[in-house]
Protein backbone atom coordinates (compact mmCIF):
# COMPACT_ATOMS: atom_id res chain seq x y z
CA UNK A 1 0.00 0.00 0.00
CA UNK A 2 1.76 3.15 -1.08
CA UNK A 3 -0.90 5.61 -2.16
CA UNK A 4 -1.65 7.56 0.98
CA UNK A 5 -4.18 8.49 1.95
CA UNK A 6 -5.78 5.34 0.52
CA UNK A 7 -9.23 5.66 -1.03
CA UNK A 8 -10.65 4.35 2.22
CA UNK A 9 -8.70 6.88 4.27
CA UNK A 10 -10.05 9.63 2.01
CA UNK A 11 -13.64 8.57 2.69
CA UNK A 12 -12.85 8.74 6.42
CA UNK A 13 -11.49 12.28 6.04
CA UNK A 14 -14.61 13.37 4.13
CA UNK A 15 -16.94 11.73 6.65
CA UNK A 16 -15.16 13.49 9.52
CA UNK A 17 -15.42 16.80 7.67
CA UNK A 18 -19.14 16.39 7.00
CA UNK A 19 -19.93 15.12 10.48
CA UNK A 20 -17.60 17.40 12.41
CA UNK A 21 -17.65 20.69 10.49
CA UNK A 22 -20.68 20.81 8.20
CA UNK A 23 -23.46 19.03 10.07
CA UNK A 24 -23.15 21.11 13.27
CA UNK A 25 -23.73 24.39 11.38
CA UNK A 26 -26.62 23.19 9.21
CA UNK A 27 -30.00 24.44 10.39
CA UNK A 28 -32.04 23.62 7.29
CA UNK A 29 -33.77 20.25 7.94
CA UNK A 30 -33.61 19.14 4.34
CA UNK A 31 -29.87 19.85 4.16
CA UNK A 32 -29.24 18.10 7.47
CA UNK A 33 -31.11 15.05 6.24
CA UNK A 34 -29.27 14.98 2.91
CA UNK A 35 -25.92 15.37 4.62
CA UNK A 36 -26.70 12.39 6.86
CA UNK A 37 -27.71 10.41 3.75
CA UNK A 38 -24.44 11.42 2.07
CA UNK A 39 -22.51 10.22 5.12
CA UNK A 40 -24.35 6.90 4.97
CA UNK A 41 -23.41 6.60 1.31
CA UNK A 42 -19.77 7.28 2.19
CA UNK A 43 -20.01 4.49 4.75
CA UNK A 44 -21.08 2.12 1.98
CA UNK A 45 -18.07 3.14 -0.13
CA UNK A 46 -15.80 2.67 2.88
CA UNK A 47 -17.07 -0.87 3.54
CA UNK A 48 -16.99 -1.80 -0.12
CA UNK A 49 -13.36 -0.72 -0.32
CA UNK A 50 -12.69 -3.09 2.58
CA UNK A 51 -13.40 -5.98 0.23
CA UNK A 52 -10.81 -4.93 -2.34
CA UNK A 53 -7.25 -6.26 -2.30
CA UNK A 54 -4.59 -3.76 -1.21
CA UNK A 55 -2.62 -2.01 -3.97
CA UNK A 56 0.52 -3.90 -4.97
CA UNK A 57 3.38 -1.43 -4.78
CA UNK A 58 6.27 -3.90 -5.04
CA UNK A 59 7.48 -2.47 -8.33
CA UNK A 60 7.28 1.13 -7.16
CA UNK A 61 9.27 0.27 -4.03
CA UNK A 62 11.91 -1.55 -6.08
CA UNK A 63 12.24 1.39 -8.48
CA UNK A 64 12.61 3.87 -5.61
CA UNK A 65 15.29 1.67 -3.99
CA UNK A 66 17.29 1.35 -7.22
CA UNK A 67 17.35 5.13 -7.67
CA UNK A 68 18.38 5.62 -4.04
CA UNK A 69 21.34 3.31 -4.68
CA UNK A 70 22.31 5.45 -7.66
CA UNK A 71 21.26 2.84 -10.21
CA UNK A 72 19.97 5.37 -12.70
CA UNK A 73 20.01 4.56 -16.43
CA UNK A 74 18.85 6.60 -19.44
CA UNK A 75 15.55 4.67 -19.22
CA UNK A 76 14.87 5.50 -15.56
CA UNK A 77 13.19 8.88 -16.10
CA UNK A 78 10.62 7.48 -18.55
CA UNK A 79 9.82 4.67 -16.09
CA UNK A 80 9.40 7.12 -13.24
CA UNK A 81 7.24 9.48 -15.29
CA UNK A 82 4.95 6.63 -16.40
CA UNK A 83 4.48 5.67 -12.76
CA UNK A 84 3.64 9.27 -11.76
CA UNK A 85 1.18 9.52 -14.66
CA UNK A 86 -0.74 6.48 -13.46
CA UNK A 87 -1.15 8.09 -10.01
CA UNK A 88 -1.93 11.50 -11.47
CA UNK A 89 -4.70 10.16 -13.71
CA UNK A 90 -6.46 9.17 -10.50
CA UNK A 91 -5.47 12.12 -8.28
CA UNK A 92 -5.71 15.06 -10.69
CA UNK A 93 -6.32 14.03 -14.32
CA UNK A 94 -6.71 17.55 -15.70
CA UNK A 95 -3.30 18.60 -14.42
CA UNK A 96 -1.53 16.84 -17.29
CA UNK A 97 -3.41 19.05 -19.78
CA UNK A 98 -1.48 22.02 -18.44
CA UNK A 99 1.62 20.60 -20.11
CA UNK A 100 -0.10 20.09 -23.45
CA UNK A 101 -0.92 23.75 -24.08
Amino acid sequence: MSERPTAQELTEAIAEFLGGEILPVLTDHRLRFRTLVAMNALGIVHRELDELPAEDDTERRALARRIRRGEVTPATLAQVKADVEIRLRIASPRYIERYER
Partner: protein
Amino acid sequence: MREALEAVLGPASEPVLLAGGASKEAWAVDAGGERLLVRRAAGGVIHRHSLSLRDEFEVLTVAFEAGVKVPRPVVYIDELDGREAFVMERLEGETIGRRIVRMDVPARLPLQLAEELAKIHAIPRERLPFLTEARLERMVEELDEVGEPHPAIELGLWWLQENMPAPREQVVNHGDYRIGNVVVDEKGLVGILDWEFAHLDDPVRDLGFGLVRAWRFGVDDKRLGGIADIEPYLERYNELTGLDVRPEELDYWELAGNVVWAIGCLTQAQRHLRGQERSVELAILGRLGAEVEYEICHLLENAA
Protein backbone atom coordinates in the same frame (compact mmCIF):
# COMPACT_ATOMS: atom_id res chain seq x y z
CA MET B 1 -9.07 33.38 23.51
CA ARG B 2 -10.20 36.99 23.91
CA GLU B 3 -9.54 36.91 27.64
CA ALA B 4 -6.10 35.39 27.14
CA LEU B 5 -5.26 38.08 24.59
CA GLU B 6 -6.59 40.92 26.70
CA ALA B 7 -4.29 39.83 29.51
CA VAL B 8 -1.39 40.74 27.20
CA LEU B 9 -2.77 43.44 24.92
CA GLY B 10 -5.36 45.17 27.05
CA PRO B 11 -8.93 45.69 25.82
CA ALA B 12 -9.31 43.91 22.48
CA SER B 13 -11.98 43.14 19.91
CA GLU B 14 -13.38 39.61 19.63
CA PRO B 15 -10.63 37.60 17.81
CA VAL B 16 -11.66 36.17 14.45
CA LEU B 17 -10.03 32.98 13.17
CA LEU B 18 -8.93 33.56 9.57
CA ALA B 19 -9.01 30.97 6.80
CA GLY B 20 -5.85 29.45 5.43
CA GLY B 21 -2.62 28.83 7.29
CA ALA B 22 -2.03 25.11 7.28
CA SER B 23 0.37 24.74 10.17
CA LYS B 24 -0.48 27.81 12.22
CA GLU B 25 -3.68 29.51 13.26
CA ALA B 26 -4.14 33.16 12.36
CA TRP B 27 -6.47 35.37 14.37
CA ALA B 28 -7.42 38.92 13.47
CA VAL B 29 -7.87 41.19 16.46
CA ASP B 30 -7.86 44.92 17.10
CA ALA B 31 -6.31 46.33 20.27
CA GLY B 32 -4.82 49.64 21.32
CA GLY B 33 -6.12 51.22 18.13
CA GLU B 34 -4.07 48.81 16.00
CA ARG B 35 -4.98 46.12 13.51
CA LEU B 36 -3.21 43.02 14.78
CA LEU B 37 -2.70 39.44 13.73
CA VAL B 38 -2.09 36.62 16.19
CA ARG B 39 -0.09 33.69 14.87
CA ARG B 40 -0.65 30.67 17.07
CA ALA B 41 0.55 27.06 16.92
CA ALA B 42 -1.75 24.39 15.46
CA GLY B 43 -1.20 20.63 15.71
CA GLY B 44 2.10 19.29 14.39
CA VAL B 45 4.56 20.98 12.03
CA ILE B 46 5.04 20.74 8.27
CA HIS B 47 8.75 20.00 8.37
CA ARG B 48 10.67 18.84 11.36
CA HIS B 49 13.01 21.71 10.76
CA SER B 50 10.52 24.55 10.89
CA LEU B 51 11.18 27.20 13.56
CA SER B 52 9.39 27.47 16.86
CA LEU B 53 7.15 30.52 17.09
CA ARG B 54 9.68 32.03 19.51
CA ASP B 55 12.46 31.78 16.92
CA GLU B 56 10.17 32.87 14.10
CA PHE B 57 9.30 35.99 16.10
CA GLU B 58 13.02 36.68 16.53
CA VAL B 59 13.60 36.32 12.76
CA LEU B 60 10.69 38.66 12.08
CA THR B 61 12.12 41.19 14.53
CA VAL B 62 15.60 41.09 12.98
CA ALA B 63 14.12 41.35 9.46
CA PHE B 64 12.01 44.34 10.56
CA GLU B 65 15.09 46.03 12.01
CA ALA B 66 16.97 45.34 8.77
CA GLY B 67 14.33 47.31 6.90
CA VAL B 68 12.69 44.34 5.21
CA LYS B 69 9.01 44.90 4.40
CA VAL B 70 7.40 42.76 7.11
CA PRO B 71 4.53 43.18 9.56
CA ARG B 72 5.79 45.02 12.64
CA PRO B 73 6.38 42.45 15.39
CA VAL B 74 4.48 43.26 18.60
CA VAL B 75 4.94 40.58 21.26
CA TYR B 76 5.79 36.92 21.74
CA ILE B 77 3.52 34.95 24.10
CA ASP B 78 4.82 31.58 25.30
CA GLU B 79 1.36 30.43 26.32
CA LEU B 80 -1.81 31.82 24.80
CA ASP B 81 -4.78 29.68 25.76
CA GLY B 82 -2.51 26.65 25.99
CA ARG B 83 -0.32 27.23 22.93
CA GLU B 84 2.67 29.28 21.80
CA ALA B 85 1.84 32.44 19.81
CA PHE B 86 3.03 35.86 18.73
CA VAL B 87 1.34 39.08 17.75
CA MET B 88 2.23 41.27 14.81
CA GLU B 89 0.79 44.06 12.72
CA ARG B 90 -2.02 42.97 10.37
CA LEU B 91 -1.11 44.23 6.90
CA GLU B 92 -3.76 45.23 4.42
CA GLY B 93 -3.69 43.68 0.99
CA GLU B 94 -4.08 40.41 -0.86
CA THR B 95 -2.28 37.24 0.22
CA ILE B 96 -4.24 34.56 -1.65
CA GLY B 97 -2.05 33.36 -4.51
CA ARG B 98 -4.79 32.50 -6.98
CA ARG B 99 -6.18 36.03 -6.59
CA ILE B 100 -2.80 37.76 -6.87
CA VAL B 101 -1.98 36.08 -10.20
CA ARG B 102 -5.30 37.39 -11.55
CA MET B 103 -4.75 40.91 -10.24
CA ASP B 104 -3.39 43.71 -12.38
CA VAL B 105 -0.12 43.76 -10.44
CA PRO B 106 2.31 46.62 -11.12
CA ALA B 107 5.44 45.91 -13.14
CA ARG B 108 7.56 46.83 -10.14
CA LEU B 109 6.32 43.87 -8.06
CA PRO B 110 8.95 41.41 -9.38
CA LEU B 111 11.63 44.07 -8.82
CA GLN B 112 10.39 44.64 -5.28
CA LEU B 113 10.55 40.90 -4.64
CA ALA B 114 14.20 40.97 -5.73
CA GLU B 115 14.91 44.04 -3.59
CA GLU B 116 13.46 42.54 -0.41
CA LEU B 117 15.30 39.30 -1.01
CA ALA B 118 18.58 41.21 -1.36
CA LYS B 119 17.88 42.85 2.03
CA ILE B 120 17.08 39.51 3.65
CA HIS B 121 20.26 37.95 2.30
CA ALA B 122 22.29 40.87 3.68
CA ILE B 123 21.17 40.18 7.28
CA PRO B 124 24.31 39.16 9.22
CA ARG B 125 23.89 35.49 10.12
CA GLU B 126 25.34 36.18 13.58
CA ARG B 127 22.12 38.03 14.39
CA LEU B 128 20.23 34.74 14.17
CA PRO B 129 22.56 32.15 15.71
CA PHE B 130 19.84 29.50 16.03
CA LEU B 131 19.33 29.17 12.28
CA THR B 132 20.69 25.91 10.91
CA GLU B 133 22.16 25.07 7.53
CA ALA B 134 19.98 23.17 5.07
CA ARG B 135 21.42 20.08 3.43
CA LEU B 136 20.16 17.64 0.84
CA GLU B 137 20.42 14.87 3.44
CA ARG B 138 17.67 16.55 5.43
CA MET B 139 15.27 16.15 2.54
CA VAL B 140 16.18 12.46 2.33
CA GLU B 141 15.52 12.07 6.08
CA GLU B 142 12.12 13.70 5.77
CA LEU B 143 11.19 11.44 2.87
CA ASP B 144 12.31 8.37 4.82
CA GLU B 145 10.15 9.38 7.76
CA VAL B 146 7.11 9.36 5.48
CA GLY B 147 8.03 5.81 4.52
CA GLU B 148 6.27 5.68 1.13
CA PRO B 149 8.04 4.91 -2.16
CA HIS B 150 8.20 7.97 -4.42
CA PRO B 151 10.53 7.26 -7.35
CA ALA B 152 10.12 10.77 -8.84
CA ILE B 153 11.28 12.40 -5.62
CA GLU B 154 14.18 9.92 -5.42
CA LEU B 155 15.20 10.77 -8.97
CA GLY B 156 14.95 14.49 -8.22
CA LEU B 157 17.17 14.07 -5.16
CA TRP B 158 19.66 11.99 -7.17
CA TRP B 159 19.83 14.66 -9.89
CA LEU B 160 20.31 17.45 -7.33
CA GLN B 161 23.20 15.51 -5.80
CA GLU B 162 24.84 14.82 -9.18
CA ASN B 163 24.47 18.35 -10.53
CA MET B 164 25.14 20.48 -7.48
CA PRO B 165 26.45 23.92 -8.52
CA ALA B 166 29.59 25.38 -6.95
CA PRO B 167 28.46 26.33 -3.43
CA ARG B 168 27.95 30.00 -2.65
CA GLU B 169 28.40 31.52 0.75
CA GLN B 170 25.36 30.62 2.84
CA VAL B 171 23.07 33.47 3.82
CA VAL B 172 19.90 33.93 5.86
CA ASN B 173 17.13 32.40 3.73
CA HIS B 174 13.44 33.15 4.17
CA GLY B 175 12.85 29.54 3.17
CA ASP B 176 9.37 29.88 1.66
CA TYR B 177 9.74 32.99 -0.51
CA ARG B 178 6.88 32.87 -3.00
CA ILE B 179 3.51 34.23 -4.03
CA GLY B 180 1.13 33.04 -1.32
CA ASN B 181 3.46 34.22 1.44
CA VAL B 182 3.52 37.90 0.49
CA VAL B 183 0.98 40.70 0.86
CA VAL B 184 0.32 42.61 -2.33
CA ASP B 185 -1.88 45.57 -3.22
CA GLU B 186 -2.43 47.60 -6.40
CA LYS B 187 0.75 49.58 -5.71
CA GLY B 188 2.93 46.50 -5.26
CA LEU B 189 4.57 44.58 -2.42
CA VAL B 190 3.24 45.36 1.07
CA GLY B 191 5.04 42.75 3.15
CA ILE B 192 6.58 39.31 3.49
CA LEU B 193 4.97 36.73 5.76
CA ASP B 194 5.56 33.19 7.05
CA TRP B 195 9.15 33.05 8.25
CA GLU B 196 8.93 29.63 9.90
CA PHE B 197 11.22 27.97 7.35
CA ALA B 198 14.03 30.53 7.71
CA HIS B 199 17.44 28.85 7.63
CA LEU B 200 20.96 29.28 6.27
CA ASP B 201 21.36 28.31 2.65
CA ASP B 202 22.67 29.19 -0.79
CA PRO B 203 21.11 32.56 -1.71
CA VAL B 204 19.84 31.14 -5.00
CA ARG B 205 17.72 28.66 -3.04
CA ASP B 206 15.43 31.54 -1.97
CA LEU B 207 15.70 33.20 -5.37
CA GLY B 208 14.53 30.06 -7.18
CA PHE B 209 11.83 28.87 -4.79
CA GLY B 210 9.22 31.29 -6.15
CA LEU B 211 9.58 29.71 -9.59
CA VAL B 212 8.03 26.40 -8.50
CA ARG B 213 5.02 25.75 -10.75
CA ALA B 214 2.65 25.10 -7.85
CA TRP B 215 3.20 28.73 -6.79
CA ARG B 216 2.16 30.05 -10.22
CA PHE B 217 -1.45 29.26 -9.30
CA GLY B 218 -2.41 28.19 -12.82
CA VAL B 219 -0.66 31.01 -14.70
CA ASP B 220 2.06 28.62 -15.83
CA ASP B 221 3.64 30.78 -18.56
CA LYS B 222 4.77 33.40 -16.03
CA ARG B 223 7.62 31.59 -14.39
CA LEU B 224 8.00 33.90 -11.42
CA GLY B 225 4.99 32.97 -9.32
CA GLY B 226 2.47 33.44 -12.12
CA ILE B 227 3.16 37.19 -12.15
CA ALA B 228 6.20 37.80 -14.39
CA ASP B 229 9.13 36.47 -16.38
CA ILE B 230 12.29 35.90 -14.42
CA GLU B 231 14.74 38.20 -16.24
CA PRO B 232 13.98 41.59 -14.59
CA TYR B 233 13.78 39.88 -11.19
CA LEU B 234 17.09 38.11 -11.64
CA GLU B 235 18.82 41.23 -13.03
CA ARG B 236 17.64 43.38 -10.14
CA TYR B 237 18.79 40.82 -7.59
CA ASN B 238 22.22 40.54 -9.20
CA GLU B 239 22.52 44.32 -9.41
CA LEU B 240 21.76 44.78 -5.70
CA THR B 241 23.81 41.90 -4.33
CA GLY B 242 26.77 42.05 -6.69
CA LEU B 243 26.29 38.33 -7.26
CA ASP B 244 26.26 36.92 -10.75
CA VAL B 245 23.53 34.31 -10.54
CA ARG B 246 23.09 32.55 -13.88
CA PRO B 247 19.71 31.32 -15.16
CA GLU B 248 21.01 27.70 -15.01
CA GLU B 249 21.47 28.07 -11.28
CA LEU B 250 17.86 29.18 -10.98
CA ASP B 251 16.87 26.05 -12.91
CA TYR B 252 18.72 23.90 -10.38
CA TRP B 253 17.02 25.56 -7.41
CA GLU B 254 13.64 25.53 -9.13
CA LEU B 255 13.95 21.75 -9.26
CA ALA B 256 15.13 21.69 -5.64
CA GLY B 257 12.09 23.77 -4.68
CA ASN B 258 9.83 21.25 -6.35
CA VAL B 259 11.48 18.40 -4.46
CA VAL B 260 11.05 20.30 -1.19
CA TRP B 261 7.36 20.89 -1.92
CA ALA B 262 6.75 17.30 -3.11
CA ILE B 263 8.07 16.08 0.24
CA GLY B 264 6.10 18.86 1.98
CA CYS B 265 2.86 17.51 0.49
CA LEU B 266 3.61 14.07 1.93
CA THR B 267 4.51 15.37 5.38
CA GLN B 268 1.34 17.50 5.42
CA ALA B 269 -0.75 14.41 4.67
CA GLN B 270 1.10 12.59 7.45
CA ARG B 271 -0.14 15.18 9.96
CA HIS B 272 -3.64 14.07 9.07
CA LEU B 273 -2.87 10.34 8.89
CA ARG B 274 -1.00 10.36 12.21
CA GLY B 275 -3.84 12.25 13.85
CA GLN B 276 -1.82 15.38 14.71
CA GLU B 277 -4.37 17.43 12.83
CA ARG B 278 -7.29 15.70 11.13
CA SER B 279 -8.19 17.67 8.02
CA VAL B 280 -9.45 16.73 4.59
CA GLU B 281 -7.38 19.63 3.25
CA LEU B 282 -4.15 18.11 4.56
CA ALA B 283 -5.21 14.60 3.57
CA ILE B 284 -5.68 15.38 -0.10
CA LEU B 285 -2.18 16.87 -0.37
CA GLY B 286 -0.87 13.32 -0.06
CA ARG B 287 -2.43 12.64 -3.46
CA LEU B 288 -1.96 16.06 -5.07
CA GLY B 289 1.77 15.71 -4.50
CA ALA B 290 1.66 13.66 -7.72
CA GLU B 291 1.30 16.99 -9.56
CA VAL B 292 4.58 18.18 -8.12
CA GLU B 293 6.23 14.86 -8.97
CA TYR B 294 5.03 15.24 -12.56
CA GLU B 295 6.65 18.68 -12.65
CA ILE B 296 9.89 17.16 -11.32
CA CYS B 297 9.84 14.70 -14.24
CA HIS B 298 9.13 17.55 -16.66
CA LEU B 299 12.08 19.60 -15.34
CA LEU B 300 14.35 16.55 -15.48
CA GLU B 301 13.37 16.00 -19.13
CA ASN B 302 14.28 19.60 -19.89
CA ALA B 303 17.57 19.23 -18.07
CA ALA B 304 18.54 16.08 -19.99
